């Protein structure tokens, strides 16, 4: 579904990603872990071109999206992204947050988008918040809405950048629960997180990034039971 070839990204002289290669198959749940500053966010943000790769190729459904002629907006409409800080639109109600993109991009009519939003809100247990503004919600509620907002576009893949890192501990569970359900529904997911339990339980592959590279990749069981590289062993000894 997504192929990354020889991806490089530099900020000034700072080489953040160095020759990253990876392939994501439909239905996979890739969990990306690694120390802070290792380039996880940058990698994720390159996948939907929020960051422009310095060099290398990214293919999405067979299309070379790093080609300057590719229609980025069309590509992004098919990839959901959930941010650490939720980034709900502060000037819009929850309902408007969810229906804005589908209606403005003419994927759905006003009525259809609203119906769809209500269905999704029911799924995450937040229908009664439809007319509220983001500032009146808790962090956990905001993040569940952010997930719904992305899902309203019927994306082919969902990218998560530390979706629970900005949450109070008691709210982490409700967000992970929604992500778990999403995974069970067959969604292709790439999740950057520090939640090792989630990686173990939901991931089909776990990827360890360090120093701008994918250092190791394995099934969750092998990843945690038999880490190969010393750097991963050291990382796991710290976080587990």
């Amino acid at each position, binding site marked *: 579904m997504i192929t990354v070839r020889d991806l490089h990204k530099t900020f000034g002289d700072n080489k953040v990603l160095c020759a990253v290669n990876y392939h994501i198959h439909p239905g996979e749940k890739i969990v990306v872990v690694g120390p802070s500053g290792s380039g996880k966010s940058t990698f994720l943000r390159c996948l939907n071109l929020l960051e422009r790769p310095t060099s290398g190729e990214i293919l999405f459904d067979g299309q070379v999206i790093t080609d300057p002629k590719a229609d980025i*907006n069309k590509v992004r409409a098919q990839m959901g992204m959930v941010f650490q800080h939720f980034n709900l639109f*502060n*000037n*819009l109600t929850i309902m408007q947050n969810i229906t804005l993109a589908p209606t403005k991009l003419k994927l759905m009519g006003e009525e259809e988008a609203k119906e769809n939003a209500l269905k999704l809100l029911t799924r995450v247990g937040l229908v009664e918040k439809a007319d509220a503004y983001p500032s009146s919600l808790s962090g956990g509620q905001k993040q569940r809405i952010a997930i719904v907002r992305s899902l309203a576009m019927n994306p082919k893949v969902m990218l998560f950048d530390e979706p629970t890192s900005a949450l109070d501990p008691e709210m982490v569970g409700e967000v992970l629960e929604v992500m778990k359900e999403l995974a069970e529904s067959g969604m292709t997911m790439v999740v950057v997180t520090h939640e090792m339990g989630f990686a173990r339980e939901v991931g089909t592959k776990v990827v360890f990034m360090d120093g701008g590279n994918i250092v190791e990749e394995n099934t969750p069981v092998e990843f945690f039971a038999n880490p190969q590289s010393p750097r991963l062993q050291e990382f796991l000894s710290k976080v587990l």
Partner: protein
Amino acid sequence: MEWLNSVWMKIEAAFITKDRWMLYLKGLGITMEVAIFAALIGIVIGTVAAFMKLSVTRKGKPSILAKIANIYIDVIRGTPSVLQLLIMWFVVMKNCHNGILVASLTFGINSGAYVAEIVRAGILAVDKGQTEAGRSLGLNQFQTMVYIVIPQAFKNVLPPLCNEFIVLIKETAIVGYVGMSDLTRVANQMTSTIYEAFTPLIGAAVIYFIIIKLLTILLGLLERRLRKSDNR
């Protein structure tokens, strides 16, 4: 008693004899007219200049438009407004004898340079995450601006824009240089009519002060309203 009487006579001469207060009122009218037109022109020019200044090339460098806007802002901020007014009146628009028009344009162009910075700052103050979320959903840059960033920036810029209008009211006091009878010039001319400077000048100052104080109070109320609606 004697003293009070002489004060009253001065006030009478400066404001009441021959309905002179009408002159101040007319002067105030011209002051406000120029300030209002200039503010409107300034908002239009300043908003355009702000977006020019924010525009970048594909590689993320400032665009040609941004450079043009920068030159405009630099020139306006780097020269005295009296000179800008004289240049407009005697050079650029020397065939136009409509003082209000020339003055409004001059101050509008002048104010635009400051409004540009206000609008630019207001847009940059909107969290980058808002834009990223919009773009990640597939909205283009224009749609993200119109539906998400600008509505939030509007709240940021409203108070400083009102403040800019208040500043303009005082700034226009130099239109006397090109022969317009605004409040300041009326007071100034009155000093030579009645051979007494204190009363008409202080009188004009009091009028400016009251108007500006009133507007400042209104601005304070507006700011409080906006802050309240922040956590709606």
